[in-house]
């Protein structure tokens, strides 16, 4: 971060308007090219053989019959993806997940792959591959995995972050701890303490586009990959390292992405497709089926969370303590750590402690899912805070306002906050008409807050002035939600030209320097910062060219309203030179005009939201419908408010699905029982109401325009908001997500039984 990137409080002409997105027409006409829409001459069809067992040792794999089948051009196993990771554990885990080596660790784990002339032949070939498994005991449940006597996935897994090093291996791969103060002293000051355990089940990002790529490796060692990804530079890095290629010799071109939500931040089939192409010496297209997407690509964690919060009668939270167990699949992750960091981030707490435990289970490798790990922690914390409000007879919004973090608060995970939005979103919620609207029969209202860090990171952009004065902006962050429009608005703002004269494209890995991926809500935050700097660089060149054209000192030239203007008594009467005029003259003033920038976008402003939710519960079936929903969130500065609303609504809808219905269901055999959209039911149109939004703008001081990331926080509050609404409707405290009809019915029955018991006792 430099002085140039500080918020200046300028007024805007383009930023904050709502023009049409540049990718709109392609997407409504079927022209937009997604991962599975790319074809290359001579391409083969790739397909992956997956383990039906949750845990087994691979004794042998016989591929000879598959290789002999007519039309099969390559068969690969782990032997064709040798370990080149050189002690890099994280990279080894990626490799092992892409193609199992000595063991399979989950139902769906890849063990071999084929490339054939067509899909039918590829499927036939998979059936001819014989894998000799030695079946091992498995564990899929988070609590069972940490219980004594559980099958241990890795004999060399000794919990990291514990001193002294444990003597016995376990499924707890890592422990992390955050907080400050003295929680025991804090609890001693509490008038009311509530301690509960919560569980949330594993959910999938549920993007509608399955993973898809086309890989082409040339005999000279160079290669190309077309893929739907959230981070083509990261994919290039991982693929090149796993295949032993020079990074610069692999060109990765991102296609349109049909949803990612974190699930396309990780390589799954891409190294396999490249290895197949290398062996077959032909391009290979590999598209996952929906079944494969569920069984073998990144779900979020299942969790089990113990939580304890104390409060005074006057509504001051005195202490909070949480132990969070998050599954990370068979490989160590940082999911519990993120949960531990986010748990109490909304609140100003003197005494707080959170402990995260990364739990290994025989499930697919956990991957980021929109504000990863925060929704589960918020479910636990926000449920207990609501319950505490009830116990001390205080309005739950007032209790939260009383304890909300503010500028200067030391966050529960360490840093001291700058200006933040939790207080303002709570106040807006309190004043929102939704809060006082009447409720119908069997309806309840709940609210909850959410937090997400927001990321920055490595970013670069190219801004090229075309000979006619229009602008081509090339960015390296994937557009997942309308960023091309937003970044064009930013370029137009800085240059002082109309939005429709800027066209944004996402460049491939050979056209731009390295960019971190679009994750952590960083796309618009980071690339807008680099775009502003690129535009400013271009403007300085434009001013130099104008000075040359006028033959006056460059100090006498300013840039205003898309034109170079001469200033001062001597030159002030010169007619302004437009961008188009300067561009036209470029061949004679020094050649093409461009602005470039590369930076590490620091200072991503943290994000907060408050949600209000009304539910209606059918007391006979337990079926719960969301009947009204309001999202209030701080955007810093909404570059394109309509697309910001879209992020708020989409995140809320995913959270609603998670809260009420979505979950991975494993059988006793360790196999996933609902690997399809019929049985893993995400919200459909008739499940949801309109989702109202309110955008607050508390500028991020570390961005020239005050922008914060907006993409993720909206998925954080819904679990708790809905749980609280159900509780307020029926007086039952839901502690297990999803709050599916059977679980709600059971809670209602239990409450009724308890009530009648009370009557009998009385």
């Amino acid at each position, binding site marked *: 971060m430099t002085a140039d990137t500080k918020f200046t409080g300028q007024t805007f002409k383009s930023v904050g308007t709502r023009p049409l997105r540049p990718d709109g027409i392609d*997407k*409504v006409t079927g022209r937009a090219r997604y991962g599975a829409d790319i074809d290359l001459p001579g391409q083969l069809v790739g397909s992956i053989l997956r383990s039906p067992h949750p845990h087994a040792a691979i004794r042998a794999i016989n591929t000879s019959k598959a290789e002999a089948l007519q039309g099969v051009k390559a068969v690969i196993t782990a032997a064709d993806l040798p370990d080149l990771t050189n002690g890099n554990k994280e990279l080894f885990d990626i490799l092992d997940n892409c193609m199992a080596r000595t063991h399979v660790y989950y139902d769906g784990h890849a063990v071999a792959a084929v490339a054939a002339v067509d899909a039918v032949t590829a499927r036939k070939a998979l059936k001819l591959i014989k894998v000799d498994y030695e079946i091992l005991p498995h564990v899929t449940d988070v609590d069972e995995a940490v219980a004594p006597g559980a099958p241990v996935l890795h004999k060399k897994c000794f919990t990291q972050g514990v001193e002294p090093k444990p003597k016995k291996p376990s499924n707890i791969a890592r422990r992390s701890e955050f907080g400050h103060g003295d929680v025991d002293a804090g609890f001693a000051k509490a008038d009311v303490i509530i301690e509960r355990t919560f569980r949330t089940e594993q959910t999938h990002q549920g993007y509608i586009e399955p993973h898809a790529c086309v890989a082409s490796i040339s005999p000279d060692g160079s290669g190309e990959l077309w893929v739907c990804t959230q981070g083509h530079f990261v994919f290039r890095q991982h693929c090149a390292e796993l295949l032993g290629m020079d990074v610069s010799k692999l060109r990765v071109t991102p296609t349109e992405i*049909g949803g990612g939500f974190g699930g396309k931040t990780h390589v799954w089939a891409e190294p396999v497709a490249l290895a197949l192409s290398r062996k077959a010496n032909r391009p290979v297209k590999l598209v996952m089926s929906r079944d494969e997407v569920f069984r073998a690509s990144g779900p979020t964690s299942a969790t089990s969370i113990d939580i304890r919060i104390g409060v005074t009668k006057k509504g001051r939270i005195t202490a909070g303590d949480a132990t969070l167990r998050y599954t990370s699949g068979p490989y160590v992750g940082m999911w519990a750590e993120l949960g531990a960091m986010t748990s109490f981030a909304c609140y100003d707490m003197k005494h707080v402690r959170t402990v995260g435990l990364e739990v290994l289970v025989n499930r697919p490798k956990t991957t980021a899912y929109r504000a990863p790990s925060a929704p589960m922690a918020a479910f636990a914390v926000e449920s207990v805070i609501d319950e505490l409000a009830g116990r001390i007879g205080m309005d739950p919004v007032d209790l939260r306002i009383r304890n909300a973090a503010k500028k200067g608060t030391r966050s529960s995970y360490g840093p001291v906050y700058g200006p933040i939005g939790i207080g303002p979103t709570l106040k807006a919620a309190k004043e929102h008409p939704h809060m006082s609207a009447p409720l119908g029969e069997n309806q309840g209202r709940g609210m909850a807050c959410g937090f997400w860090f927001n990321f920055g990171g490595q970013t670069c952009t190219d801004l090229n002035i075309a000979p006619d004065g229009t602008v081509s902006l090339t960015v390296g962050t994937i557009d997942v*939600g309308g960023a091309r429009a937003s970044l064009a608005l930013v370029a137009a703002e800085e240059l002082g030209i109309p939005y429709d004269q800027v066209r944004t494209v996402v460049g491939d890995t050979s056209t731009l320097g390295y960019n971190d991926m679009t994750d952590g809500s960083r796309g618009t935050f980071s690339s807008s910062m680099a775009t502003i700097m690129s535009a400013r660089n271009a403007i300085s060149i434009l001013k130099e060219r104008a000075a040359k054209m006028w033959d006056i000192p460059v100090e006498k030239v300013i840039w205003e309203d898309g034109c170079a203007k001469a200033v001062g008594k001597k030159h002030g009467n010169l007619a302004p030179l437009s961008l188009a005029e300067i561009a036209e003259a470029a061949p004679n003033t020094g050649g093409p005009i461009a602005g470039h920038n590369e930076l590490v976008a620091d200072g991503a402003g943290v994000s907060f939201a408050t949600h209000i939710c009304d539910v209606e519960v059918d007391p006979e079936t337990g079926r719960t419908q969301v009947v009204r929903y309001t999202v209030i969130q701080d955007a810093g500065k909404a570059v394109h408010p309509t697309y910001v609303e*879209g992020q708020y*609504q989409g995140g809320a809808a995913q959270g609603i699905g998670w809260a009420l219905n979505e979950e991975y269901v494993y059988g006793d055999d360790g196999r996933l029982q609902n690997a399809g959209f019929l049985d893993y039911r995400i919200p*459909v149109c008739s499940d*949801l109401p309109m989702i109202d939004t309110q955008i607050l703008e508390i500028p991020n001081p570390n961005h020239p325009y005050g922008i914060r990331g907006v993409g993720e926080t909206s998925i954080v509050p819904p679990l708790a908001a809905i749980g609280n609404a159900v509780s307020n409707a029926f007086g039952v405290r839901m502690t297990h997500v999803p709050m599916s009809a059977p679980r709600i019915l059971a809670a209602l029955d239990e409450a009724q039984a308890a009530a009648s018991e009370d009557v009998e006792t009385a």
Partner: protein
Amino acid sequence: MTNLVNTNINGDAVGFACEADETLLDALRNRVGLKGVKEGCGTGDCGACSVILDGTLVCSCLVLGMEVEGRTVETVEGLSNGAELHTLQSKFIEHAALQCGICTPGFLMAAKALLKNNPDPSEEEIRYALAGNLCRCTGYDKIVRAVQATAAELREA
């Protein structure tokens, strides 16, 4: 065995070869080159592959390619009249009814089929008519509004 299928797609007479067990979805994408028809699940659960077959909305992954012999197929590629977008298409863009856009072709076809039969649908009718199409980005709010706006404009036309 490969069979030749003669059909009408988006107003044009089209012939394509396909296997007996090949879905209409695969035939449209891989034989005819209509990549606007999307595969999200292959099991009829997501609606991304929705096309209109003889006036009826179907999931093309649940229809065999050979079944369209002598019939009429409409896909997203046939929705606009040359450069002139169908009202649904322009309203989807104006109302930001798409983000990633992978589900959009299916939603457009489902909405077209709805409005043909019901030019003045209530919000609830729209929501149920589109319940066979999954969108994971928008929360459906802006999709419903785009369809409402289209219906209103088409009624005035």
